[in-house]
């Protein structure tokens, strides 16, 4: 009797959904993430509309750095999807290269973000300073944690986890696809956070 229990539909499609299980699972997880960030964006709307005045983020946040960070995340999304495409074309070396670049972009994003945070603290801007700063730190902080989470998963898949390519390439390629779904979602959240916090006019 075999001791190992085979998890079904991790490389083949399940007949009723037409998907391998991990993909549906990650999409359901992303649905919960939409609610999490949706709650924060709703809070922003409520607090902004309820306030008599509202700061213009660009007046004291660093827009050029945030623009660079936006481009860094967009590049990381491209390298992430290229790492998946490389596996689809049976090119494991290219996969390692693109996934490595994705992780480096994540590091770059966090380094730039930490410069921004340090500057805020130096100039006396804390979460307790204003409603705007409370939202700024909560939303960018939660997003930053998501970037760290994605980097941990991507680093595993770049390093020890990549051994699976040699034993079960289809399953490994699927893993990269679902890790990519999460990473693109994190990019998508930033695409909305950037204008909301840095660019929207004050009142």
């Amino acid at each position, binding site marked *: 009797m075999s001791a190992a229990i085979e998890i079904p539909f991790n490389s083949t499609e399940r007949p009723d*959904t*037409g*998907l391998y299980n991990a*993909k*549906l699972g990650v*999409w*359901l997880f992303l*649905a919960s993430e*939409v*609610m999490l960030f*949706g*709650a924060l964006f*709703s*809070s922003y*709307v*409520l607090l902004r*509309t*309820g*306030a*008599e*005045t509202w700061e213009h983020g*660009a007046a004291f946040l660093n*827009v050029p750095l945030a*623009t660079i960070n*936006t*481009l860094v995340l*967009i*590049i990381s*999304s*491209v390298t*992430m*999807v*290229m790492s998946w*495409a490389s596996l*689809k*074309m049976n090119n494991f070396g290219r996969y390692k290269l693109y996934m490595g670049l994705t992780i480096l972009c994540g590091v770059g994003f966090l380094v730039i973000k930490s410069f921004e945070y340090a500057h805020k603290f130096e100039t006396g801007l804390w979460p307790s300073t204003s409603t705007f700063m409370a939202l700024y730190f909560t939303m960018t902080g939660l997003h930053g944690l998501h970037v760290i989470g994605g980097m941990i998963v991507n680093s595993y898949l770049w390093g020890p986890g990549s051994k699976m390519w040699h034993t079960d390439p289809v399953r490994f390629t699927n893993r990269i696809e679902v890790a*990519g*779904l999460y990473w*693109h*979602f994190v*990019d*998508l959240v930033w*695409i*909305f956070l*950037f*204008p*909301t916090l*840095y*660019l*929207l*006019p004050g*009142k």
Partner: protein
Amino acid sequence: MNPIEARMSTTHHEEIHHHVRIYIKVFVALAVGTIVTVLASNVHLGIVLGIIVALLIATVKGSLVAAFFMHLVAERKVIYWVLVLTASFVVAMMGLIMFAHDDQQGRPQGIFAVPQGHVPVHQAEGAPKE
């Protein structure tokens, strides 16, 4: 590899190459969108128009990411249904919060209280006067 497998493999590779070309185009569109949204924020469009333009560009960029990088442009039905359900919950949440916003106008205390400094001058009827 027999000839049929070889042909299938070539077709598969061509398909992926086609995807890669799309990814590059999407990347260029996203980069341009980022520059445009920053430039647009420097133009004095007013509050309402400024917000609409910024969020419109963000929505287009977000849609590109979802459609091509997340492969939603050609996905199974069950995922679309998951997203429809999620979207309806988000709309419900936003809606409930906006109702709460109507509730808080001019109310100096309670769970939706607004700090005194932020209470608009046009206080709601029945609210205690300062």
